[in-house]
């Protein structure tokens, strides 16, 4: 459930465009923030209602983009590029190192809810391959010994750049 205030805000936002559906992505981003970093089915319904886009299409948008999550994700999102430049420069090794360090496979979240590890196709950082991104921060070229440092630095932060995960931002 979202608050009436948020609903009014998002409904108003869609009204700024000649077609309400243009506001959909913004609505979904705000809802993902509201629901603590992911979009439950309820959020899909609400986004559909607010933007006037059919539910099926909202689901299509939610599953199309990498940064919309349809199941609970960790506080920090780590993506490993596996596109052509990074593949040639050994992204498999980087991914394997991350998996070992975090104790999870690609596509999984650590049991403590701290990290989610995902593959991604191209971060646009091909000149610094292999490349990874942690929350909003790009790293590259990444070497195996940098992994520990990056993970520890990220874990030591009280919260990631994805602030919505903070308790104080959670819906009451």
């Amino acid at each position, binding site marked *: 459930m979202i608050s009436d205030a948020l609903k009014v805000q998002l409904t108003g936002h869609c009204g700024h465009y000649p077609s309400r559906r243009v506001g959909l992505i913004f609505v979904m981003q705000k809802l993902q923030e509201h629901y603590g970093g992911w979009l439950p089915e309820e959020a*899909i319904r609400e986004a559909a209602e607010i933007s006037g886009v*059919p*539910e*099926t*299409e909202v*689901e*299509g948008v939610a*599953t*199309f*983009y990498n940064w919309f999550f349809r199941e609970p994700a960790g506080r920090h999102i780590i993506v490993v590029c596996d596109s052509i430049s990074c593949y040639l420069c050994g992204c498999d090794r980087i991914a394997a190192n991350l998996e070992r360090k975090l104790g999870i496979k690609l596509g999984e979240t650590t049991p403590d809810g701290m990290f989610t590890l995902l593959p991604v*196709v191209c971060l646009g950082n091909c000149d610094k391959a292999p490349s990874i991104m942690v929350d909003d921060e790009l790293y590259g070229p990444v070497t195996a010994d940098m992994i520990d440092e990056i993970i520890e630095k990220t874990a030591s932060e009280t919260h990631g750049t994805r602030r919505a995960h903070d308790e104080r931002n959670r819906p009451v």
Partner: protein
Amino acid sequence: MSAKIKITVNGVMHEAEAGRNILQILLDLGIMLPHFCYHEALGAAGACRLCAAMISPGAGKPARLEMACMTRAEDGMIVDITNPQAVDFREKLIEELMLNHPHDCPVCDEGGECMLQDMTVLCRHQHRRNRFPKRTWRNQDLGPHIHHEMNRCITCYRCVRFYRDYALGDDLGVFGSRGRVYFGRMRDGALVSEFSGNLVDVCPTGVFTDKHFRAVYCRPWDLQTAPSICPHCSVGCNVLPGSRHKTLRRIKPRRNHTVNRFFMCDHGRFGGGFVNADNRLTSARFDGAGMSLDDAITQTAERLKEIVQTHGRGAVAAIGSPGASLEANAALILLMKTLEGRFAFFSTGAERAAHKRAAALIANGQVDTPSLPEVEQADFTLIVGGDITREAPMMDLAVRQTIRAGAPLFIISPQAGKLDAFAKAARHAALPEQAAIVSNIAQALDHALMTGQPDPFAGAAASALATAKRPQILCGATGAGGIALVDAAHSLVAKAVRPERPCRLVYWFPAMNSFGISLARNDESPDTIKQDVENGRIKALTILEHGASLDSEWPDDSKPMKSCFTIAVDAIAGKAATDADAVLPCASHYETFGTVMNYEGRAQRFEGLPLPRPVTWSSAEVLLKLIEALGAGEAINRTEYHDLFEIPATMSSLIGTLAPDSEGLLIRSTAAVREVVG
């Protein structure tokens, strides 16, 4: 006609229509350039990249590898589809498309009519080099009609382009991106669109297949087919039923560019169950005793003669059927002429009056009735008199094309319908009140410049109608709206027509051949026939194809037919046949040939499937045998269609020559021929 251009294909000069894409031109020329995502109705998407060809803008200019579907043909273009670079490109592309496609052709329903199979062979891809595992999916339950097999998907997007973009459905979507694209519903459940069956046809491979056909599957090349017409509404979609081993297996749309073009509705596609039904009549009966059809006909003829001798003229009557062919109803009328009897057709007196008025307006060319492709072209639509989505689904699909183009839609209907969501305004009113609302629009049209209309709906509709360039009104001549509604719609159109701007008018009817029987000469109101049967004035009643008629409530048990000898000529053991004194079984619609007239007054010929059953005669043939048994056989050859129906003599003589794969014969154009001839 659009301008012609010259285009060279594989070294040969061809003439083509300007403004079309190169792929369509090649396909029209009969040159098979491999393609997937392109569909004539759905347009070009450029998603599959398969229709690559070397295209040069003109002689001496360099050729480049381009997608034929995305390239507009220009005069002087040179196209080479055999160029090694293009051939190699297409082969590599098929190899990629086949990366995840299962090699399950031997057990796949689509096998034998699979576009992917054809194109893979055509592009000569034979050897799989990819050694990685194929991606697999969980399939969804899409309801009773459509089977889902996502693993076979090659992501051509045809399904969503049809279901969502073309048919404006919103419960089938596309999810994910890149190598994990999934086509389906958000969650398991039946597809709600009236046109979901077309997914089976538009999908170039076996992702969406016909569940009913799966249950009685056979290879498509083993099906026997016959060009037929769908019996379920007055649109008259061209269909291709397929049978095997004495049963109807499936129904597919048959292309006709003046009627349904590529598609058909689910009601027609999945509504062929009556052919295989358990309650088919298989043997003749007379006075409770089973016998051969010949004997039953002879005995029935004797009994009819006795009744006429005893009770005189008008003692025998017949009820014809809007669900039966022109031939069958003509034979029934001829039978009554032979016996000096009376006849009517299944409906009510009020409906009959409305149908006759509407049919006469169309037949005389007093209204400009659009074909389905013409309905799609309108830039203003007013629907009145019924729920078009249920009563003429393919016309609903045509109206959806006008909505896609941004044309305003106004609806006056008895209750909320599916098109309401797309309407500029929808008004719900009981049918008898609808004529008044239509008249309000006509009045508002007179005072288009005046402000403050008393009826805001009528005002809005009138001002949109006034500014439209190609307006149309679709009026249901089906039910209780009656003749008042038919007239109201006609006067509104008469008012809206201007010399530079036609206003088209559709009357849609309740049944396949309602139009045809509405042209019958000398028929009575069904109400008077019912009355006279119930009060005993009519001594013998012949009922034609009650099972195919909409009015199944009569005859019923509530008012017994006093001392009336009833003869049922029917394919189905319904109420009429169960209670009849003489039962003369006939073949069902898909097993017989004949002619029917759709809502435009378009006579269309259909052929029958050769199903080897105990009964193979059509109802028309059964009735003609009966006439012969009465000793009036020579009347059959002397009678022309225009003796029995209000149709021009030219049409009458042309009906016999109609071919099922033709455009049919429009009554209003034959009327023009009559004027010219004299």
